[in-house]
């Protein structure tokens, strides 16, 4: 008896379902049309109207321009060794600096361990956000302006730019840990530092190392272009080749960048396997 009443009360009319389905279809179509209009408008403004079609010339001319890059300037190779090593060093030291800055950022920015939530948590989150929302080239421009030309501003740019990702992922790993081991270590009479050391860090170390290695790989890529704004490494050579219209030289630098990136990936792959 009672269940019958429930049924009639909750039962939905077929007409209602059809009306709702039609309404959904109409709103979906409107949404789709709005998106299409936006895309077409963007194509018109940014591509059709904004491109210098005269200078680009015919398809043949475009291919010919691209063809100029095919070829390697072997005479450049001896001059690449030092900048390549410098690029690699910038990425290593930059990542290391980033990890050091990450320690307070992670500590403050993880909800469950932040020392004084109303103040330290926003500070930690702010450090992560500002690091990520500014491009590495912009950071490099800033540090070149502050510290002058050379590898040092590059290291700072990479370091500061790395904080966002490493600290955010580490803080999230810390927020996801199992609470049991923390209880167990607290119950032995351990202090907060010991709890961090014995109950929290062992749970997140593999993840954190993985994140650092990943960020380091990205940092090799980043440091390869920092020379464009005067922050040392292969980017500077790249810039010079481009300015002197030595297109084969440009290709050579790109290949050199590729080589150290692949080297970095190999190193990262094996250290990941060993450490995790």
């Amino acid at each position, binding site marked *: 008896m009672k269940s019958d009443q429930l049924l009639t009360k909750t039962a939905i009319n077929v007409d209602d379902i059809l009306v709702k389905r039609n309404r959904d279809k109409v709103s979906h179509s409107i949404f789709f049309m709005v998106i299409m209009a936006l895309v077409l408008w963007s194509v018109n403004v940014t591509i059709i109207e904004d491109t210098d079609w005269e200078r680009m010339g015919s398809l043949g001319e475009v291919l010919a321009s691209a063809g100029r890059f095919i070829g390697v300037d072997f005479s450049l190779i001896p001059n690449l060794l030092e900048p390549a090593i410098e690029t690699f060093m910038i990425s290593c030291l930059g990542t290391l600096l980033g990890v050091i800055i990450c320690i307070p950022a992670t500590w403050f920015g993880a909800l469950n361990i932040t020392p004084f939530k109303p103040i330290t948590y926003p500070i930690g989150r702010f450090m992560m956000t500002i690091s990520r929302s500014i491009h590495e080239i912009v950071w490099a421009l800033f540090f070149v302006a502050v510290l002058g030309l050379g590898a040092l501003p590059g290291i700072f740019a990479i370091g500061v730019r790395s904080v966002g990702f490493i600290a955010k992922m580490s803080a999230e790993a810390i927020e996801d840990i199992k609470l*049991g*081991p923390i*209880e*167990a*270590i*607290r*119950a*032995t*009479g*351990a*202090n907060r*530092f*010991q709890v961090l*050391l*014995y*109950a929290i860090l*062992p*749970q997140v*170390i*593999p993840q954190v190392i993985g994140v650092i290695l990943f960020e380091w790989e990205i940092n090799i890529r980043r440091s390869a272009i920092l020379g464009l704004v005067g922050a040392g490494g292969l980017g500077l050579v790249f810039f010079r080749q481009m300015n002197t219209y030595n297109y084969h030289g440009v290709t050579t630098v790109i290949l050199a960048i590729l080589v150290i990136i692949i080297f970095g990936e190999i190193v990262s792959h094996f250290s990941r396997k060993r450490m995790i």
Partner: protein
Amino acid sequence: MSVLEVNELRVRYNAGSPEILKGINFEVGENDFFAIIGPSGAGKSTLIRCINRLVEPNSGKIYFKGNEITGMSNRKLRIIRRDIGMIFQEFNLIDRMSVMDNVLSGRLGYTGNLRSFFKIFPRKEIEKALNLLDRVGLSDQVDKRADELSGGQRQRVGIARALIQGPKLLLLDEPTSSLDPKISREIMSLIKEMATELNVPCLCNIHDVQLAMEFCNKIIGIKDGVKMFDGSTESLNKQKLDEIYLMEVL
């Protein structure tokens, strides 16, 4: 003389939420193996965590060897915690550390920050850890990582970790609930044997009445945060049990 005295203990987790413990009283004596029984959600885990203040009680008093634990400063509390060993349902070992390091972590209350950072423990403590691991039957697993062990073995590490503290009281929070019936009985026997040998009173949460009757000399039963029974194991009869577990039977 009682080792532990709990008076009018009340707990609620948040200001608006219902009370978990509604005025609990009991005393644990020097030679007691004391069981807390009751259905899931009765407040057993909360109760046992109040003893070493992993959970902060809202009101009521707890005395451990005459010292009032409630209202104690954090520094003093850490010193008291060194004397109270705890064994957990989910073992709560540090998965990525070795069995030896897990046992030694029971000594953290006696270890400085710098030494704990480098995991430097005195030779005597390592010796003691080895002895305990031998007693719980794991002397051949010293270097294994904790997550390589089986459930029963992990709980044995948990027992060694609690005992290396040299505790004056053992808190057992459902020590057998994650184990099968045979291993459960083995673990309970081991705990009882070690506790008797070292003269440590135990306070044990356990929902398995059979095991409680078998191993414990005193029992309190709680239901919905209220004490329903308090007495020796012999005096617990079927009628009392039905009262405690009424909710579950329905």
